[in-house]
């Protein structure tokens, strides 16, 4: 029982961070039909901005803010402006070539960090630290709880923003029916830009939360990107709560499998889940088949 609880809670804490990356992934897909294969690297990179900022002598909170600003600019604005926008504008660029471009971007970011910062894993400061509690025999750290709370809080805020504000609803309109959004006078370009900025901010937050465990390393994005991708599809590609559920589910399932079923095949579980979902319910667990379909 204690073990079950332990594994469950740890899985939820990790899963909540996967969810952040998965939500960004989903948003980009909805608003710009961009399957971002560099999503994992988008989570890897901001941690290095923090390390660079701290290397310049800035205290941690300032370094975090600087990293957030730089990430939102580079991974949000520049990504859209320099890569996605020109490709979307051309006749054939939106589909496969964009996929290839984001895959190359993943290599570019990864190798760039390795060459200019270093190949070794770097220690990374914890955002939230503190003791731990004993919950019915399971050890739960304050950090775990904080992760879960921060991730859920962000999801709630984001949902509120999208549903309760005019800008949020204009973003939904842009994602669900861009042509109509345009003729209603919605500044669709700006809404798409907002989506890119939000995605970058979510990835940055995920980076801040997960790097203390992962440790800052150039190759961190490989696994994270894949998980974000799977979580988004499993949960439902066109739903924020779908991506949240997908992330949590994979976090928990991964740990449960390793504990009770097989450690050798733990990595297979999300993949099998992905295949089953695609064949059985392609719109995802919580996804809707209306609106944009994949």
């Amino acid at each position: 029982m204690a073990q079950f609880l332990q594994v469950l809670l740890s899985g939820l804490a990790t899963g909540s961070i996967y969810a952040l990356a998965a939500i960004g992934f989903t948003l980009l897909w909805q608003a710009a039909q961009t399957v971002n294969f560099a999503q994992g690297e988008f989570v890897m990179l901001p941690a290095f901005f923090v390390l660079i900022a701290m290397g310049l002598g800035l205290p941690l909170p300032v370094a975090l803010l600087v990293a957030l600003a730089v990430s939102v600019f580079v991974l949000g604005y520049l990504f859209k402006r320099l890569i996605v926008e020109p490709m979307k504008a051309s006749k054939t660029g939106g589909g496969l070539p964009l996929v290839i471009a984001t895959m190359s971007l993943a290599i570019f970011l990864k190798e760039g960090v390795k060459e200019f910062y270093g190949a070794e894993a770097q220690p990374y400061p914890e955002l939230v630290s503190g003791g731990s509690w004993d919950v019915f025999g399971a050890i739960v750290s304050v950090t775990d709880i904080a992760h879960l709370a921060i991730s859920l809080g962000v999801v709630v805020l984001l949902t509120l923003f999208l549903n309760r504000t005019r800008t949020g609803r204009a973003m939904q309109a842009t994602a669900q029916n861009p042509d109509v959004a345009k003729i209603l006078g919605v500044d669709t370009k700006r809404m798409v830009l907002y989506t890119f900025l939000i995605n970058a901010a979510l990835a940055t937050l995920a980076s801040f939360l997960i790097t203390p465990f992962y440790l800052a390393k150039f190759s961190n994005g490989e696994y994270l990107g894949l998980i974000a991708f799977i979580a988004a599809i499993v949960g439902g590609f066109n739903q924020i709560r779908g991506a949240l559920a997908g992330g949590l589910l994979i976090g928990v399932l991964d740990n449960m499998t390793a504990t009770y079923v097989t450690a050798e095949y733990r990595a297979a579980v999300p993949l099998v889940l992905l295949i089953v979902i695609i064949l059985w319910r392609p719109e995802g667990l919580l996804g809707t088949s209306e609106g944009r379909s994949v």
Partner: protein
Amino acid sequence: MKRLNLIAAAALTIMATATAMPTGLRAADTVSLPCVCELSGAGAVSGTNYRDGAKMAAEEINAAGGILGKKIVMTDYDTQSDAQTSRALVQKAIDAEAYAIIGTVYSGSTIVNMLVAQQNGVPQFTGSEAPNVTRQGNPYIFATSSSSAKGVPGLTPYFKDTLKAKKIGVAWVNNEFGKGGHDVFVNEMKGAGITVVADVPSEQGQADFAADVSKIKESGAEAVFVYLNEEEAARFLKEAKKQGLKAPLVGEVTLTSQKVIDLAGDAANGAYAHVGITVGANVPAVQEFGKKFKQKYSRDTDHNGLKGYIAVYAVKYVTEMNGSLDQEALAKKLHGLTLDVAKYPGMLLTTSWDKTGEMSRESFMTQVVDGKQKVIGTVPAN
């Protein structure tokens, strides 16, 4: 469009032919010791340290007159941590008249490319520690540190007599490096009458060790053997601390390395490891090496730097013993040879090779105390 296709095809055939430019011939007054290493990709840290250690040795030797009066030329070949690339590069290095190959560090790569060196009769000094590298009956392969087949048995008396463990857990990384160590370890425990109660493989690059630690904790293991790469070891230590795992954690080589200590912070305190050679060893020559390395490259090295360093010195000493640049003689001479550090200071420690190319020398038991690796005992060469 069809025409275009054809032109493109023709053009690239020419390009392919042009790539195939003959590589320059070796000038007769130098010794080529190419370094085929993991300079990029997942193994970049180990590979780069190995290369830089080797480079440092080569520069020292050249400054002192070279090998048999000939200067060492060391060319880098980056395997990108990919086995098939490494094979092609060893071939390339041999095409360019390599005297001996320095590298590779990844066991998965060495297993592949050592065949090429063997076919061409070129001695190879690998940084790999998987036992199956030296078990292939390849007369040209030489280890630069004890493989886990030698290192892990060194731990057995420690578990049996010092820790007096009856039940033991093992956490290992499920790749050729981890599997090698794991297999040797499980075998050793069986021989020593110790039960392995938790056998937990993990993925390379795995981030969440909650399940792994929890399984070991539940199993009631009295000690844990941790055979993981550095980052994973650090993550494991952090999770073990969080879950309050009380059993002593004992590793081979990596667990008490400076990198793991940096990454894991206080979670590393108390961890034990058996290390073949370490900059922290209480041996003046080794400490001197650590200082020189830091001065030259402004960073610390792990044991891979030491391995690359002694590889090049071994080539020098044995070649000069033979008196000629004869590859076959070099390989023959090394088998069963012991280089005494008193006579051959570049070896840093007295080192011997057996008939399979496996090496052996004095090794150390270490523990992390207050964020520093401390040598707590010496394990004699076996």
